């Protein structure tokens, strides 16, 4: 614990105050004394004390009344009431009012030590719990969601409005736009944030494995099922399940998934016991699910069950104004992780980034920045550190045939249309090269 435990002793008898003061000081606590409730309350208004050890019978305001006022000031303060006269009624009343414990004077030295030790453990656990909660919040803090563009602000506003509900969400967008981050943002801002966010990449698993992964399995359900295993639906109880690449699941899995979404119940593979789980489902896809429904490759009923809310994440080329911000964010992120000092980017390199159309979206930009920091001088990203020469924005994506045509023409021109030399360099025979020239209708004048 970062701070020393502080104890406030409240008793009208000086000898009791002195004895307790001495005892706790010797134990290394921070101790303060008050002779009555009034003094104690004014001390508590000025400073927070972890533990208040208060006599129940005092002139003026009694210990029970003072206890209520302490709780009104700070509900986390641990109050232990003490009395010279054991009375079950007062003890019950004190405990009903939320006192941590009740002791009769004089105490056995060991009882006093145990009492304070237990209260200290309680305080430590509470602090630890709060620290962990804030760490969870920090972990779930989706810092990578960077952007000030109108398109991104629209997405973030949708995230905010959908987070508090438990409705199913489909996140659509091209590969690399950050769909999983959006799912994390929804989870992190939802009341389910202290429960797990379980991600399943449906496209990465064959059907049989996906079934076992989602629903779990019983020992002996199939070869290799040596133990009972919880499925992802079960693990996400109370939290959120994120199904990435939902469009890739088979027709059979679509039926299974629909049933789970409708009932919230399922059985493990090889099991017969019905299991309930309270989860929210968020899906992501880069496919047009509506089109798939029309084509009959995705179930319509499942589509409508999943598509309660749709959030579309725009590709990076549609939010060009975010490129600078994102580049800066990734430079800071990787500089910190590589123990480098602040890294900047020169104007030419930034201009080139802003001109590029990023088919791989934010993921591509992130990788590009990381690579540039690794191969660059570590201080400033320059144009030469970016692998963008041939992919400036405005150039359309070329097919393999277009590239082949361009390459053959380049080589032919380089060697003055000497077919033998060009074929040798291209590592094809002359006949093949002639066929290609014919196919692409290449002529010396083309150049």
């Amino acid at each position, binding site marked *: 614990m970062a701070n020393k435990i502080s104890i406030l002793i409240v008793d009208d*008898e000086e*000898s*009791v105050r*002195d*004895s*307790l003061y*001495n*005892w706790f*000081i*010797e*134990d*290394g606590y921070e101790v303060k004394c008050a002779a009555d409730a009034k003094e104690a309350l004014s001390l508590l208004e000025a400073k927070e004390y972890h533990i208040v050890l208060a006599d129940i019978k005092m002139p003026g305001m009694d210990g029970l009344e003072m206890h209520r006022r302490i709780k009104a000031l700070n509900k986390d303060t641990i109050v232990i009431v003490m009395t010279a006269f054991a009375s079950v009624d007062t003890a019950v009343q004190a405990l009903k009012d939320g006192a941590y414990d009740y002791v009769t*004077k*004089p*105490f*056995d*030295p*060991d009882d*006093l*030590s145990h009492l304070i030790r237990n209260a200290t453990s309680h305080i430590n656990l509470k602090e630890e719990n709060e620290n962990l909660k804030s760490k969870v919040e920090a972990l779930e803090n989706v810092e990578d969601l960077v952007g000030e563009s109108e398109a991104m602000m629209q997405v973030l506003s949708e995230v905010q409005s959908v987070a508090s509900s438990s409705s199913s969400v489909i996140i659509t967008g091209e590969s690399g736009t950050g769909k999983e981050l959006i799912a994390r943002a929804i989870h992190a801002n939802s009341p389910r944030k202290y429960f797990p966010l379980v991600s399943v990449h449906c496209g990465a698993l064959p059907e049989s494995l996906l079934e076992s992964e989602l629903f779990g399995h019983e020992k002996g359900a199939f070869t290799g099922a040596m133990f009972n295993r919880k499925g992802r639906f079960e693990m996400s109880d109370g939290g959120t399940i994120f199904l990435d690449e939902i469009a890739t699941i088979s027709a059979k899995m679509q039926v299974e998934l629909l049933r789970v979404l409708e009932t919230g119940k399922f059985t493990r593979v090889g099991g017969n016991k019905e299991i309930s789980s309270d989860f929210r489902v968020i899906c992501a896809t880069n496919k047009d699910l509506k089109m798939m429904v029309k084509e009959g490759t995705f179930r319509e009923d499942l589509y409508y069950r999943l598509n309660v809310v749709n959030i579309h994440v725009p590709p990076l080329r549609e939010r060009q104004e975010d490129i600078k911000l994102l580049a800066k964010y990734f430079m800071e992120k990787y500089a910190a992780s590589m123990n480098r000092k602040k890294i900047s980017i020169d104007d030419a390199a930034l201009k080139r980034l802003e001109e590029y159309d990023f088919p791989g979206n934010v993921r591509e930009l992130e990788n590009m920045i990381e690579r540039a920091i690794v191969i660059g001088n570590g201080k400033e990203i320059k144009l030469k550190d970016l692998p963008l020469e041939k992919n400036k924005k405005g150039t359309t994506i070329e097919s393999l045939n277009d590239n082949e045509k361009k390459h053959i023409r380049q080589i032919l021109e380089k060697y003055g249309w000497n077919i033998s030399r060009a074929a040798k360099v291209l590592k094809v025979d002359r006949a093949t090269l002639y066929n290609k020239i014919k196919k692409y209708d290449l002529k010396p004048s083309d150049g």
Partner: protein
Amino acid sequence: MKGEKQNTVTLASFGAFDRQTIELIAEAIREDLGMPVAIIERRVDLSIYFDIGRRQYDGNRLMKMIETQFPDTQGKIVGLFNVDLFIPILTFIYGQAYLGGKIAIASKFRLMNEHYGLPANEELLKDRFIKEVIHELGHAMGLVHCHTPTCVMRSSTYVEDVDQKERYFCQECRSQLENNGYITKRAL
């Protein structure tokens, strides 16, 4: 020794102790702390410190009595008793001290095996009493309870706890005593 602290310890006996026990305590302090130790025997009527209701002797009042008995004595004074001590809030104490203060007290009454229905063991009693006196002296020199299991400054609410620790200060407590100018660094 740094500072202007009066680094002497006075063991003031207020009970019928055999001289050998007090000498043993003095020797233990000299040996571990290198501090000069004086022994004084006082005959005081303790009955005025006896609480009829609790049938025990009031530790707080005994400490005040020692303060008035030794107004000019420099250094730390540890009053040695063989009566059952209490303070208002606790059912009993083995001893007590003002943290960083001049006075400490310790009693061997609750350290006796007979008190727990066990056969008397003089050697064990002497060992426990030495530890208790050094423990209270440690408080008087500003040390709080220590978590090192064997350190003499570990808190002990049962005699078994006293038996488990040693009569010496752990390295950390020694360092504090050195920093506070009570003892000098031990040669390695």
